[in-house]
């Protein structure tokens, strides 16, 4: 029992009170397990019930779908009544473009700010740093004005531009910290060989930034994919709707159709969960490494 819960490869701090330790281990696992159930139960509930008939959803909400109760009608409704494929595609385009550009432009700006000394250097670094704390949402009134003037309302371009501006501060911060850890011999050797500054960055530095970029990518991606505010305000049109907005509108419209609501939520949850389970190791490493400073 003890071996199951605590890895006996690692030493205990003294072996007195073996029994008490097993008891403690059980208590710790009880707490963690309870909280894990609390964290997962609501999500699982939605996933399970999205597969069931309306009757079964209400009669036995906790039951797994069986042959009798299996019903994919909800998904049919969602795909029929709304353009889920398009929404997902929009979200994908916006997220990929925005994250890709945040990484590239962020790395370039971080390089310029940390590698070169020039007038205004510190001021610009401070300006970017402010963006980490001050939410871009507060400028929404003017952003909307700007997008109207640029004829970008209801376009994905508007979202991409705003998300780049939103993601850059943190990207510049994390990448700058990382660039500082690159040994300067590397750059000096390249300069002695007469390689241009452009080539030093793109051929030498950029490949080295890959691990930090993975962290930045995760941090940038999640808020963009999940955002409701800017799609709602800048691109509410049917053609440019993102998946979060699409689900929000759909649920608002078909509140009473439980099958459809549960299915649309499931469609929004599953891709994120799958991606999360694949990349959780990467994400958690980034999160815990970033916390160090």
């Amino acid at each position, binding site marked *: 029992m003890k071996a199951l819960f605590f890895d*006996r*490869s*690692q*030493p*205990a*701090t*003294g*072996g*007195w*009170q073996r029994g008490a330790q097993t008891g403690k281990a059980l208590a710790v696992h009880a707490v963690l397990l309870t909280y894990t159930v609390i964290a997962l139960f609501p999500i699982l509930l939605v996933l399970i019930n999205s597969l069931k008939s309306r009757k079964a959803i209400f009669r036995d909400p906790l039951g797994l779908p069986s042959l009798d109760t299996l019903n994919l009608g909800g998904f049919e409704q969602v795909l029929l009544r709304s353009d889920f494929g398009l929404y997902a595609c929009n979200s994908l385009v916006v997220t990929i473009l925005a994250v890709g550009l945040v990484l590239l432009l962020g790395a370039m700006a971080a390089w310029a700010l940390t590698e070169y000394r020039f007038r205004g250097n510190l001021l610009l670094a401070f300006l970017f740093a402010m963006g980490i704390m001050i939410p871009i949402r507060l400028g929404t009134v003017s952003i909307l004005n700007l997008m109207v003037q640029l004829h970008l309302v209801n376009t994905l371009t508007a979202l991409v531009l705003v998300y780049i501006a939103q993601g850059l501060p943190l990207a510049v911060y994390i990448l700058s910290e990382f660039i500082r850890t690159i040994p300067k011999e590397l750059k000096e050797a390249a300069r002695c060989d007469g390689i241009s500054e452009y080539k030093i960055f793109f051929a030498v530095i950029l490949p080295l930034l890959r691990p930090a970029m993975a962290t930045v990518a995760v941090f940038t991606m999640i808020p963009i994919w999940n955002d409701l505010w800017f799609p709602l305000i800048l691109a509410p049109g049917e053609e440019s709707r993102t998946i979060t907005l699409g689900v929000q509108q759909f649920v608002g419209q078909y509140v009473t159709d439980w099958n459809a609501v549960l299915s649309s939520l499931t469609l929004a949850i599953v891709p994120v969960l799958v991606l999360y389970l694949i990349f959780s190791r990467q994400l958690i490493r980034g999160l815990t490494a970033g916390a160090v400073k």
Partner: protein
Amino acid sequence: MAKVQLKNLQKRFNDVKVLHGIDLDIQHGEFVVLVGESGCGKSTLLRLLAGLEEISDGELLIDDVVVNHQPPAKRGIAMVFQSYALYPHMSVFKNMAFGLKIAGASKADMQKKVEEAARKLKIDHLLHRLPRELSGGQRQRVAIGRAIVRDPKVFLFDEPLSNLDASLRVQTRVELGKLHQELGATIVYVTHDQVEAMTLGDKIVVMNGGRIEQCGAPLSLYHHPKTLFVAQFIGSPKMNVLAGQVQQASATGVSVMLECGVLAEVAVDGSQLQSGDPVSLGIRPEHLSLGTELPTCFAGEVTLTEELGEATYVYTSNGAGQDLVLKVDGHEEIAVHSQIRFGFKAGMAHLFDKDGMALPRLLKS
């Protein structure tokens, strides 16, 4: 002050045995140094004594009481860590008083004991500083002070000098020696530095692969290493080792045909050897001397000299695997690339059988 006994002490991590049954007696007030290369188990052994690791098997007694299952504080030990492990958010005073505070000592008592220890270590002017405002040497003293304040039966030191720079290390080493005399405390001290071991220890325990290789007074380890490992570990520069075969062996001496073609005479009891047995001959650099009149004599070209002032290390090679280091007087002038002849007296050399075990030396004492 206390005596500590280790009886067949074992430690396993998972199914990997790290300590294979350590037996050791430590007397009242003895300064014992555990020494060995990294990974030999010396730090693990110290942590077993401290109570920071669970003992897998065997018994640990402090003052004749089995303490296997007692928590660290109840064992009456105090420990000085390699990185000093000062609490970064507490002042020097609070760092030193922490153990007393946990034990429920009165304010006045804490004040008195901390100030006394601080005076002893000459850190009384630092009591209100934070650890990060101190130099490495000062932190080191605070760490020692924290141990002293608790008035433990046994002090444990885990490589306490390894984070100090060279000159400070020597100075602190001397002070530690004095402190030991002053406190008269039992000390177990872990290091990988054989100079620290030789200078500080009443008793040195050389560890290798989770076992005690040899245990004894510094000079007995130097003069009578039981194994090739100990012979090479103690002494700097390292003992020279040459492979060879026994040509003639008796209880009064052995002659060895070295692979480099030199016939060497060694004053050891060779009654258990037969001619033709493979052996290793060990000779310390300081026991090789220049000249041609010695019973065993080598020739070689000087490849490098290191002049330390009071002595010079001479690195020689004959181009056929006979690479020897000599320690000669600093006044000798020896040119690189010159050919020199040198040798040793039969009584100076060590001989080890094919298992690396030393043969008894026949020293005229």
